């Protein structure tokens, strides 16, 4: 067990995957010599050379499409899109190409590519550099989407994504890059689609992913002081997501709150809530309450951004409302 930072765990996962599999290569803007805008790819150019680490021109659509084509030709590309806001430029390649190739070609092959990209606020980066757009990708059959909430998961989920035969989008959280956490000596092999009980509890379930997991844990602390035991589920992946785990928890706690940093309306939480309002209906003792960003672009100023991002207080309020 050693302590590491989230961003270092990402770096280590890339390094190990490149060591273990010569078909793994990296492509992205300023990922080589500069080591990436957030240093996720630091030293990898030196270690593996320019034949494995491609510093690409500013051309997100082409970067993503190149990953698709290389994946169809026997390689395992890991593309970086510098901010998740820029996947707006990659959508065709992700949605109409990567996601559909296997199914529409009748299962002939697959597209074993990974696209890493950071979402979320906390850097005052403003409306075009803070968005959490994972709900779009989760809506697309053929894509998988993982969102690690801590350094150990950042490592294990990225390794799982690279090992996966299908296109996986790894959504990292900018505000977590500096987060410290324990990294097991033999990192866990995570199966994409399995959630993790981050904190057990019996009175209410909070489902979260990414940075919201920490917020949910903080809210659970507050509630614990009042004698309310909140179970926190870290989804780890939002497509597929662990419906069975959430349903099982709900059948014990009977109250559900869903939290994410993304805009609440039409976000990932809507699907979880909707699904539980169907298959979990008989288990519900109170309304399903969601906590997410308000329906507005992410503001850039410090106070506004703080007010915009979800936090423990809002999760506590949501819990109080469903438990009322």
């Amino acid at each position, binding site marked *: 067990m050693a302590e590491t930072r989230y961003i270092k765990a990402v770096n280590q996962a890339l390094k190990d995957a490149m060591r273990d599999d010569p078909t793994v*290569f990296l492509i992205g803007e300023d990922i080589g010599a500069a080591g990436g805008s957030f240093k996720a790819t630091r030293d990898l150019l030196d270690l593996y050379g320019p*034949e494995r680490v*491609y510093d*690409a*021109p500013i*051309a997100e*659509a*082409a970067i*993503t*499409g*190149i*990953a*698709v*084509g*290389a*994946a*169809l*030709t*026997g*390689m395992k*590309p890991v593309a970086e899109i510098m901010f998740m806001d820029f996947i707006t430029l990659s959508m*065709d*390649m992700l949605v*109409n*190409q990567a996601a559909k*190739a*296997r*199914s*529409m*070609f*009748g*299962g*002939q*092959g*697959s597209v074993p590519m990974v696209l890493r990209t950071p979402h979320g606020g906390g850097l005052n980066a403003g409306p075009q550099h803070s968005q959490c757009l994972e709900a779009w990708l989760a809506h697309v*059959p*053929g894509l*998988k989407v993982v969102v690690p909430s801590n350094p150990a998961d950042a490592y294990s989920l990225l390794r799982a994504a690279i090992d996966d*035969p*299908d296109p996986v989008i790894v959504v990292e959280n900018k505000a977590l890059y500096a987060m410290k956490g324990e990294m097991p000596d033999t990192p866990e092999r995570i*199966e*994409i*689609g*399995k959630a993790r009980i981050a904190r057990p509890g019996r009175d209410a379930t909070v489902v979260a992913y990414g940075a919201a997991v920490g917020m949910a844990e903080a809210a659970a602390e507050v509630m614990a002081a009042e004698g309310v035991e909140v179970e926190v589920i870290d989804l780890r992946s939002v497509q*597929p997501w*662990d419906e069975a785990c959430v349903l099982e928890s709900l059948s014990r706690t009977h109250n559900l709150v869903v939290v994410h940093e993304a805009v609440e309306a039409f976000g990932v939480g809507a699907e979880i809530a909707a699904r539980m309002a169907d298959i979990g209906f008989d288990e519900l003792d109170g309304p399903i309450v969601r906590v997410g960003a308000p329906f507005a672009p992410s503001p850039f100023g410090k106070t506004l951004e703080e007010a915009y991002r979800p936090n423990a207080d809002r999760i506590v309020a949501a819990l109080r409302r469903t438990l009322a």
Partner: protein
Amino acid sequence: MTPKERAELYRRMLTIRRAEERLQKLFADGLVPGFLHLSIGQEAVPVGVSSALTEADTVSSNHRGHGHTLAKGVDLTGFFAEILGKATGLCRGRGGSMHVADLSKGMLGANGIVAAGLPITTGSALAHRMQGKGNIAVVYFGDGALAEGLVHECLNIAKLWSLPILFVCENNGWSEFSPTERQLATSLDRLGKAYGITYREVDGNVVEEVARAAGKLVAGMRKAPAPAILECRTTRVRGHFEGDRQDYRDSDEIAALDARDPIRLCAEALMAAGLDDAALAAIAAEVEAKIEAATEAALAAPLPEAGDILADVYTRAEV
């Protein structure tokens, strides 16, 4: 080129032609679901280009992809079955005309998104370069596609990284219902110059010209990876898709198409080189028999089961 080689190119073009004519009829009979874009008049391009390719080379295509696909050597019955949406289709009936693929033959797929084949092929070429086996990648696209930004992103990257990719433009002068000249302020030769990419233009209706130019370019790329552009002037004979009556086209233009028919031109060249009518008829008979057999088999094949919809969305059964 030996007479035999030339006759083989003829046979391949005729296979594409007859296959598409058959599809045209099947479409008119309501048996082809979805859109059908025929490449009648453009057969010399893929046949000429493919004569320079091996099975390990990869190609990717666009909405008008039947010729590209057949020229890469895919199974004729699987091809028909796919376009008819049958369970025995190359893609199990899930793709149809705009999405035929056969990865085992290096055919990475037709594509319903204009210009989408370019980055995919650029990525395939990157993989070839990394794998170091001398394989190359070919992308077919139309003149109308040149307006999409992706074309430029890919020309730039292919040149920067010396990727073994052949950009094959089928310039038929049309982009759907509009003359492409109203959509483009540039041309591929000028773009080639702008990016420093080797550019060749050929009469895309003369299969030997296409084959010769492609052969040269591809041989060079195999030795020293680098991109190249091959622009083929060609002719779209049918409408943009079946059902398009081409009211927007000049009758003179349409009348002139026959004289440039690539199959007729090839037949004339073969006759000039000594082949007789009987030999040509024998080829035609052989081709027609094959097409007929493939069509019959495809028509007789079962439709996919409804339950099949959820298959293959992911490689592993869902968690």
